[in-house]
């Protein structure tokens, strides 16, 4: 069901390109993209680029989430502190991602460190801000209810604050990863010599449109897989079942 329209699109592409005799330096044929895929798979360069990109995103995201969630919860516990800190984190979360590329490359030099830093800060600020929002939207009565049933600090954290903020945390991870993924591609075009962004950008120098299109398809598929197989099911399993916030 989901794949059929995409296959139809590929069919149109396969028909249109030879029909109008499109210059391969403008747009590649299906066959040449398939060949490029086979070649890059055979010489291992495709997986090297994918691996490099995923490692950066994975590392930056894990560090970002692991640091942002506890911080966000700690800040959100007291209503006075959270309302004071909200504008600050909102500021940094609207700035998160690509705008940090220039300073990141200056601080860390071109390469791995700068890129992971850009990913990290895209995820960190957005997740921290959303966690902060999430904790502060847990109704006080629910926290009171837990306290009057005998919950101490630890139980309050694990059984009330964390699950209560989870919808916002998941939203934050989704948004932050969206920024991070784009930041990754941009940073790889600017600041490295391996990764999907680099693969695209270097192919441009040689007018290798089939490699560019291959790279775009890989980027699109990877993101679809991350979003639909990881993030959307997580949202469904928690938020919708619990009848908390529903979003698209």
């Amino acid at each position, binding site marked *: 069901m989901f794949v059929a329209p995409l296959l139809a699109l590929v069919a149109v592409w396969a028909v249109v390109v030879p029909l109008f005799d499109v210059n391969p330096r403008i747009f590649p044929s299906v066959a040449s993209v398939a060949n490029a895929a086979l070649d890059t798979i055979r010489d291992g360069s495709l997986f090297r680029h994918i691996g490099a990109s995923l490692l950066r995103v994975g590392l930056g995201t894990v560090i970002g989430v692991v640091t942002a969630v506890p911080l966000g919860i700690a800040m959100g516990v007291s209503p006075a502190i959270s309302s*004071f800190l909200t504008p600050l984190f909102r*500021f940094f979360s609207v700035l998160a991602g690509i705008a940090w590329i220039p300073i990141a490359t200056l601080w860390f030099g071109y390469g791995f460190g700068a890129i992971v830093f850009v990913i990290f800060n895209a995820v960190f600020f957005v997740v921290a801000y959303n966690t902060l929002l999430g904790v502060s939207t847990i109704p006080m009565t629910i926290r009171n209810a837990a306290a009057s049933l005998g919950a101490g600090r630890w139980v309050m954290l694990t059984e009330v604050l964390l699950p209560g903020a989870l919808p916002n945390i998941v939203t934050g991870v989704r948004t932050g990863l969206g920024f991070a993924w*784009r930041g990754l591609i941009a940073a790889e075009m600017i600041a490295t010599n391996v990764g999907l962004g680099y693969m695209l950008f270097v192919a441009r120098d040689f007018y290798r449109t089939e490699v560019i299109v291959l790279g775009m398809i890989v980027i699109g598929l990877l*993101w679809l897989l991350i979003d639909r197989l990881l993030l959307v099911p997580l949202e469904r399993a928690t938020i919708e079942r619990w009848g908390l916030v529903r979003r698209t």
Partner: protein
Amino acid sequence: MNLVLKSWGAYVRATKRWPIIATIVPFIPVVALWSVVANSGMFPRAFFPAPVDVARTFFALMYKGILPDYLQDSLIRLLTGAAIGVVLGIPLGLLIGSSKWAHRACWPILLFFQAIGDIAWLPILLIWFGFGLTTMTFVIVYTVLFPIVLNTVLGVESVHRDLARAAQSLGASRMRVLWEVTLPGALPNIITGLRNGLGYGWRALIAVEIIVGTSGIGFMMFDARRAGSTVEIILGMIVLGILWYIVDAWILAPIERATGQRWGLVTSS
């Protein structure tokens, strides 16, 4: 104790009267801390400038007219792209949303093209259009378009079928139903889409200005990076942050709330 309470009371009353105070005051300790760290000599000043340096650069660049020019360039690019994205995106979304068939056929394609992401288009766009305004505009339009289309489709579907039926039984034609019922019903979602789209859009613009680089805030920051001038990079980030904070928190979010909450439609944050 009493003095603390009194001044806290004064602060709360002041923020009630001028809400902007509650937005600005939290930044005071951050800037102070930044100032202390920068002046402590922990990092070289050229590497980690103080707030005073940034402020001085700000006034210098304002005086020379560079900052206003670049800011204007960036904003015009963003607005042009966003306008085209809205003009294309809403009708497309309405079209796809009002037919089950079109929805089923287009949804996966929309998701896929959104997933490719704006910036990945840059290399092939550079081949097609070269380094220039067309490339930049294309990227922005692309970024803004998909969130708007996807959200418009969702918005159209969230409009209760009885509303359209009610309008029809009151004598409205298909076009009238679209204009009077479907569009306003989908509006909260459309605005959410616009807000998301612009959020991605200005980031894409920065990336494009860095890579295509002739003018604009992104160009200014990356040019400064080449010259090793941290001060201008940080200035650029602060300008972007403030600008985007204002646009998002004071324009887009209130509109989103106004349409969604005023009409009692369900929208989340």
